[in-house]
């Protein structure tokens, strides 16, 4: 990397600081994990959106790959204080996955192979701001970085971008996830430095 990209939104970098408060720049890609790395076969992999009324939308790996693909280039910010700029991914927009889901829910709980969970407002998964990605830097996403597929929600701290994602549960009430029940902020906006509860 090394070259700072303006990102796909085309915002000029000179108009704003490149890094949120309290973050430092890293060129490598640290591996964070709260448990053993799940090994998920593409034959059995699935992504499921379950709405609050009990209806389910399900995609196999082949079905996910057949959907329209996007290639976001985004900056990512980990709550452990590293940021990585201009990362390139490929995957499917949550707008695409949510298009046919009939829901009045305001919240989503992302859940993963291996048991991880994280909660987000459903609005934050819409509007071209969130993806299910399977490719990083032109190569299949390695298991240690969340492959076969992970969430990518770069406008929030990276713990919200669940690795090994398996689905979303849409909810009328907010349900805090793995780190949100252990002191971390419910929303996690890096630009407002929302690291811990009460920040």
């Amino acid at each position, binding site marked *: 990397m090394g070259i700072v990209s303006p990102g796909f939104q085309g915002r000029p970098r000179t108009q704003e600081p490149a890094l949120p408060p309290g973050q430092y720049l890293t060129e490598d890609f*640290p591996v964070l994990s709260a448990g053993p790395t799940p090994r998920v076969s593409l034959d059995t992999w699935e992504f499921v959106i379950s709405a609050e009324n009990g209806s389910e939308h399900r995609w196999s790996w082949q079905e996910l790959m057949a959907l329209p693909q996007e290639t976001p280039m985004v900056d990512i910010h980990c709550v452990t204080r590293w940021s990585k700029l201009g990362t390139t991914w490929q995957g499917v927009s949550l707008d695409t996955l949510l298009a046919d889901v009939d829901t009045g829910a305001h919240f989503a709980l992302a859940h993963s192979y291996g048991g991880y969970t994280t909660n987000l407002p459903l609005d934050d998964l819409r509007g071209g701001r969130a993806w299910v990605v399977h490719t990083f830097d032109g190569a299949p996403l390695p298991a240690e970085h969340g492959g076969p597929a992970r969430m990518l929600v770069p406008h929030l701290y990276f713990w919200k971008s669940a690795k090994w994602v398996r689905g979303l549960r849409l909810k009328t009430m907010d349900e805090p996830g793995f780190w949100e*029940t252990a002191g971390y902020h419910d929303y996690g906006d890096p630009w407002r430095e929302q690291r811990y509860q009460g920040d």
Partner: protein
Amino acid sequence: MTEMSYLDGNMLDGPMHELFTVDLSTAMGRCENCGMTGSMASLHVYSHAPGLVGRCPSCEAVMVRLVRGPDRAWLDMRGTTYLQVPMPMEQTFPGPL
């Protein structure tokens, strides 16, 4: 590196001493998920994470989460149904009432 490594539960001693005077290395804990009882020092602790995550060596369920903020700490032990802690023998025993 394709597999995240973990440390043994002894590494929890220092961080836990910030909260309690209990010597965790000699404590036993019972896993809420599988019921196994064993030394807290035998937990698998994942530390390359936003907090410390201690998992049962038998079933890998989360038994302890410890998050340390700059001025606060959170301890979640819902995955541990009890801690058995060695105590000094009581000096006097109450007699029958």
